[in-house]
């Protein structure tokens, strides 16, 4: 009798346990919320936490709550892989968002492939989705697209010869290589090619060399962090008057603050709609999603969201949309639904995935922005 009661109780407990586990969709994330890449991971983590809370308040996905399990890998690829293993094996998540940097992303990617878990990366490099990996997707545009957008603008302004000054950090280096590759397609010749270290405090020599190169129409500075701000200041101090382009890596208000409003006047860079949320016109397809994310983030954290937070926003949107479309939380079904994403509007752009394209953005996702009076304006 006692044995039978115990068994019955145990069965009930087991069913109850299974019931609660089933009523909840488990999403995993490994982000670099601290460490050298914290400026990427911190807004990403904040965004995901905010969105999950919002979603659950609204009743979750088809009535099922979403649980977010978030780890901070501190920007260490080895740690990222460990946390991804933990998410898959121990926390039994159905999908992973994360990898703030290319290194952490690539460490997780091979694991996601092996285990068959859909994975949306928040890192920029093109190697993440080229060649296409079955289970790996990403939301940020690639460096190559940023180069193309900039060169498109240069071509429209009739520039043919440019000077480049790039950071030697991962972002700057990768973009420098991509820009060199596509420059020919836009009939642009890179006549001067300078670099600086991520910790350098003065780039006047490099800029002087570029200035002294004959026939330079414009200067391009791929890089992120403090480097581009220093380059911009030096550019202004030297009184160079050739048009100056920055990359999407510094598309944030913090850059203007760091470089100074008068120093950065007239600088152009490709950015996302998120930066000019207030300037978006009535009929703009991105207006609604950008404004609602912008407002919610400001309300919750008292600061403006960054482009990087926007990447996390879009990854979450893509993932929840895919789970809804798939009608189940089976990883393979989610993967298929992700690949079938068609015309989903995010803060970064409009996503249309396919078997050959696991990013799903085109150049229209970028907006060419110019800094005027310490703020952003669209030049399109």
């Amino acid at each position, binding site marked *: 009798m006692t044995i039978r009661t115990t068994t019955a109780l145990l069965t009930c407990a087991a069913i109850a346990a299974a019931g609660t586990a089933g009523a909840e969709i488990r999403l995993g994330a490994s982000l670099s919320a*601290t460490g050298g890449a914290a400026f990427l991971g911190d807004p990403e983590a904040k965004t995901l936490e905010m969105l999950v809370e919002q979603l659950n308040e609204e009743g979750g996905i088809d009535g099922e709550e979403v649980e977010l399990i978030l*780890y*901070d890998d501190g920007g*260490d*690829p*080895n*740690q990222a*892989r*460990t946390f991804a*293993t*933990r998410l*898959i*094996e*121990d926390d039994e998540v159905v999908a992973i968002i994360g990898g703030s940097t*290319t*290194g952490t992303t*690539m*460490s997780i*990617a*091979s694991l996601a492939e*092996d285990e068959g878990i859909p994975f949306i990366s928040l890192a920029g*490099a093109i*190697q993440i989705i080229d060649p296409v990996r079955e289970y790996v997707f990403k939301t940020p545009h690639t460096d190559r697209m940023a180069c193309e957008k900039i060169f498109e603008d240069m071509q429209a302004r009739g520039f043919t010869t440019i000077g480049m000054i790039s950071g*030697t*950090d*991962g972002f700057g*280096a*990768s973009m420098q*290589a991509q820009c060199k590759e596509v420059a020919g397609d836009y009939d642009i010749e890179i006549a001067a090619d300078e670099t600086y270290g991520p910790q350098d405090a003065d780039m006047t020599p490099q800029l002087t060399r570029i200035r002294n190169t004959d026939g330079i129409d414009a200067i391009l500075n791929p890089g992120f962090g403090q480097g581009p701000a220093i380059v911009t200041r030096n550019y202004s101090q030297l009184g160079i008057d050739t048009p100056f382009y920055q990359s999407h890596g510094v598309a944030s208000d913090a850059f203007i603050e760091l470089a100074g409003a008068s120093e950065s006047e007239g600088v152009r860079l490709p950015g996302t709609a998120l930066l000019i949320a207030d300037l978006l016109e009535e009929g703009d397809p991105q207006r609604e999603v950008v404004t609602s994310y912008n407002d919610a983030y400001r309300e919750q954290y008292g600061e403006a969201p960054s482009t990087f937070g926007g990447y996390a926003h879009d990854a979450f949107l893509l993932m929840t949309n895919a789970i809804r479309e798939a009608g189940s939380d089976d990883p393979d079904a989610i993967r298929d639904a992700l690949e079938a994403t068609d015309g989903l509007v995010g803060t970064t752009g409009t996503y249309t995935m396919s078997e050959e394209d696991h990013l799903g953005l085109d150049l229209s996702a970028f907006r060419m922005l110019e800094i005027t009076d310490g703020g952003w304006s669209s030049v399109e």
Partner: protein
Amino acid sequence: MSKWIQLAILAALIAILPVFFPSGYYYRIGALVFVNGIAVLGLVILIGFAGQISLGHAGFAGIGAYACALAPEQFGLHPALALLLGAVLSAGIAALIGRPILRLKGYYLAVATLGFGILVAMTIQNERALTGGPDGMAVEELGLRDLLRDLGWRVSGGEFWYGVCGIALLIGAWIALNLRDSPTGRAMRALHGSEIASRTLGIDVARQKLVAFVISAVFASVSGSLLALQNRYITPDVAGFMHSIELVTMAVLGGAGSVMGGIFGAAILTLLPQVLTVLADYEQVVLGVIMVTVMIFMPQGLLPSIARRLRRTRK
């Protein structure tokens, strides 16, 4: 404790622990503990036995790791052979730079080794065409798992690397324990005690230091190779300054003078960040407090201090 008992305990732990693993994730953690343990064993020989400091051993881990990434890609070498190549390369470089560097003492030695580590990390970062720069590069699959599968033995990636790294750690511990009581090991420990005294006894001090440096470099290199092969992706972080410091901290925390202490230190510092994830923002603080506390109250390191306390209570 005799050498064989220590080895037997270690082997038993490695073999029995998986019984208690609730999920595949714990195999990964285990494998990481072993990989770090191997590098720390090298430092136990260098710091604990010979009394020389190195703040640049991640440089050798970087050489081992990138040997496994580059040799298969560039020369079509099998990854397992690339591991050996990395070890030989590390030994060669250690022998080459060890001679001048090891003439230095104390802070100067620390700074020189630090410089070496940073140099390796910078080279890897800047040779973008070859190494992919700061973004890192993919590492070829070892292929041994497929071989096992063909033999009808299906193991998961986690289980496989747990086994491989566990065996490698056992071999490493066996070498370190053997070395400890060999004439070379005794000479190292003598020069640790007093360089002048050991020189008067006829010990070739420069040679012994160099031997310790080369052996520890090989340990670090193998550790880096195993990490690269296991992660199948490698970034310059592996050769970075922080990794060097981590390794030294593991050795000192666990007890630099003791082989098992070093492994224990590696285990603690690999596990703590995983356990402390529940504390989220306070993780770093707690980690720091634990380390400072151990250093103040157990300057000999965790394992030797605990062992001594146990012995004292028994008396």
